[in-house]
Structures are given as structure tokens and as C-alpha cells.
């Protein structure tokens, strides 16, 4: 099998947010992910990609297929920006906390929608969010 190519989507406008979630869903379809999981993944990407346009103005989302030790496949999404970063990660992951005028559900909500969620942020340098949704079948 050919290695799975990663796809990079530049995030600069709200239309790019839509593109990112559509591409990720297409990949999830290829992995035979159930439609509910496709929707959870697409929604999570929408949240983290919007954080890029809201807080950092621009960044990118890289989508690829990963495998765990048991050969199970999943869709991995890495959203990166070089924006202001997050001062207090713990608070940013708390429901209802926002500095952007929204509902404060973006990061904590996205975390609940996927199987694996990691966030790395340095104030003044940027933020990277990595999430994975595993396909149930191998």
C-alpha cells in the first residue's frame, strides 16, 4: 500500500475552515469511519481551525492517516499557527472560558469530540493542536 500522503490546507479565511473540515471528512470516509464519527471529527476541526482565524489570523491544518501499534487507522489533524499563543492552557480548556467573544466551547468541545487531543502553545510564538479520531475497524 502506498504511504498515506499528508494534505496541508492553508487557513486564512472562513472558507478555508470549511475546506479543512470537508477534506478531513473525505479522508474519514475513505477509512470507512461511521458517519457519526465523521461528523464529530469535522466539527472538532471546524472549532480548532476557527481558532486560527480568530486569534492568529493565519496558519495551516495538516491532515493525514496514522496507524497505531495494532494496525488501526485514524485521521490525524494538526492545526498550527504562529499567533499570540495561549497564556493559560488549563483555562483555555475549560468550558465557557473565552478571550475571543465566543462561547468558550471551541477547545474543550473539540477535545470531547475526538479520541486523542494534544495542545502545545507558547505565548508570543504560536499554538499547535493535534487531534486523532480512530476508525473502529482496522
Amino acid at each position, binding site marked *: 500500500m502506498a504511504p498515506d500522503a499528508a494534505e496541508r490546507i492553508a487557513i486564512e*479565511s*472562513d*472558507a478555508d*475552515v*470549511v475546506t479543512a*473540515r*470537508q477534506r478531513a*471528512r473525505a479522508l474519514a470516509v475513505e477509512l470507512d469511519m461511521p*458517519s*457519526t464519527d*465523521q*461528523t*464529530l471529527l*469535522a*466539527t472538532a476541526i*471546524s*472549532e480548532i481551525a*476557527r481558532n486560527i482565524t480568530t486569534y492568529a489570523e493565519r496558519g495551516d491544518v495538516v491532515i493525514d492517516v496514522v496507524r497505531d501499534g495494532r494496525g488501526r487507522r485514524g485521521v490525524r489533524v494538526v492545526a498550527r499557527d504562529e499567533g499570540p499563543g495561549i497564556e493559560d492552557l488549563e483555562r483555555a480548556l475549560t*468550558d465557557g472560558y473565552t478571550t475571543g467573544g*465566543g*462561547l468558550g*466551547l*471551541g477547545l*474543550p*468541545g*473539540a477535545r*470531547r*469530540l475526538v479520541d486523542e487531543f494534544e495542545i502545545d502553545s507558547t505565548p508570543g510564538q504560536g499554538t499547535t493542536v493535534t487531534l486523532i479520531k480512530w476508525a473502529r475497524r482496522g
Partner: protein
Amino acid sequence: MAVPILKQGPYLIASIQSALTDTDVLQLRDDVMAQVTRHRSRGIIVDVTSLDVMDSFVSRSLRSIAQMTRLRGAETVIVGIQPEVAFAMVQLGMSFEDVQTALDLEEGLALLQAADLGP
């Protein structure tokens, strides 16, 4: 892409056709408010059947539309939330408690008409 808004008697029907960008959603909000005023509408149905994702921004915006139109004396009903989308909204923590919803367009119209005939 702009969302078409049809006038049907005292009601407006906004039928979302495809994935919405944030700009489209805000445009919809402004268009609905303008048309409620122009037509003195008593109810609005927003049909989201074709939306495969309702993230926090879309949800919050639809809730704003419902609250804003209520202040103008018109009720908004959101119809056609897909089962997967409903699941994702609940996981996300997005509650629609203060927004009227119905299964589909027909049920939504029935809800508005019942409210109109009410006490």
C-alpha cells in the same frame, strides 16, 4: 453562498442549501432581521437539513437569530438537525434549550401555526 429566504404567508422560510462559512451565517442573520421587519413576519423557519456540521459558531449564530427575532415579536424554529449533527452538538456542549426545534419543515410550520392560534 447566500441563503434563500422565502415568504410564506406570515412566515419566512430560510432554507440552507450548502455548507456555510461564518460570513454566510452572519449574512443570514442580517437578512432574516431585515425581512422580518419588511414583511412583519410572525415566524421564521430555518431549515438546516443540508448542514453536515453545526459547530459552536453556527449554533451560537442560530441562537442569536432566534433571540433577536423574538425581540421583534417573531418566533424562530430550527428544523432538520441531522442525528449525527445533534450528537456532535451535545458532545460539544452546545445547548439549544431556549431555541425551538422541530423535525422537519412540516412540523416547524405546524408549531408556528399552533403558536399563532394559541391563547
